[in-house]
């Protein structure tokens, strides 16, 4: 069974998106990156992010991740912000009582995008 199915598929993404996005928007370290984007549209992007981290179906390449975050890198996006997002991902899954070994797998997928997201 794939990680995505084991975590709970689209249902898990839907359950996670509110919790995850609430954490991100409340975090003074990173919330500025999410300013000025319509919340509902942003929520759709958070879903894309979570689906990806859960190993679910998506069409994003490394180049897409690079391009999609380039304007944020220009605003100073760096490792500390990436770490903050990783923190919220882990905490969200823990809150949803996802078993630790699955959280680790999701974190590894997200971690693998670090270079592209940060444009290194």
């Amino acid at each position, binding site marked *: 069974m794939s990680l995505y199915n084991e975590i709970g598929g689209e249902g898990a993404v839907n359950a996670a998106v*509110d919790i995850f996005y609430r954490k991100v928007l409340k975090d003074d370290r990173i919330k500025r990156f999410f300013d000025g984007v319509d919340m509902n549209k942003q929520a759709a992007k958070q879903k894309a992010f979570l689906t990806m981290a859960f190993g679910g179906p998506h069409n994003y390449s490394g180049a897409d991740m690079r391009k999609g975050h380039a304007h944020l890198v220009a605003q100073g996006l760096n490792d500390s912000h990436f770490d903050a997002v990783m923190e919220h991902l882990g905490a969200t899954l823990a809150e949803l009582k996802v078993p630790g070994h699955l959280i680790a797998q999701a974190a590894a997928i997200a971690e693998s995008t670090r270079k592209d997201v940060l444009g290194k």
Partner: protein
Amino acid sequence: MSKVVYGGQSYECGESSVLDCLTAHGVAIPSSCRSGVCQTCLMRVVEGEVPDKAKAGLKPTFAAQNYFLACSCYPEKNIEVVLPDAGLGKLDAQVTGVEYLNADILGIRLNPSRPFEYKAGQFINLFKDATTARCYSLASVPALGEALFLNVRKVPGGLVSAWLFADLKAGDTLTISEAAGECFYVSGQPEQNILLIATGSGLAPLYGIIRDALLHGHTGRLSLYHGSYNADGFYLVEELRKLAREYPNFTYMPCISDGEVPAGYAGGMVLDVALADHPDLSGWRVFLCGNPNMVNAAKQQTFFAGASMRDIFADPF
């Protein structure tokens, strides 16, 4: 630099949207909200491709047919565009009544010239002329068989609102579009609590939604907060107080942000008052309409208070 071809002419767009580019060159393209909401500026791309952002919010069938919103389209490549033959259909509507709901808000009742499907809380486009339209929300409820009911706030120097205030009388004929928008009541969870917050004429869609929900036998709480600077800014007060007496699950609280607070009113900013009464919104549905600053702050605050993103419906205007 990408070019936009329209009507056999080529235009340099630079950093501007297709809508701004064409109108700056004197081409008349219908528009209204200029922010990707009302779909008045619908166009079709016949050569080349537009960015996905220009299709956000369109029905999948429209997007698949290369329709896009000119106000939200910043082309990355050369494109050729046309005005659509489809889009929200237009129709005539006869004005059956015009009344001042308060000094600044006009109630307009309309009788559409053909059968008209809508949900309370959706909006129509009202045309001043072929290319000038504005969105107005529907405060009427279809199942009650009422005339379409609009609440138009007077905007100083406003093209369409000032025109309506100056001229409109019963018997006139107006051109409107079919109804659109996502801000309406969906039945199926009658026990869910609903918080509704409005400023000014943002009450219009909520007045429709509340009565629609009650008509559907909604049993959860319907908690309405209407904000204004002073007591003169409210309207439909008697109607709402009467509803609150009839339906114990419906409560209405007019909130005054500035100045004297008579009995029966709350003092403070409408969002603050609502959140103080309802600090935990987990599981609630939320409707937010009116002043964009209030609506955007309220989206975030109600989400932080526990409402799920997909349960928050908003029309900023």
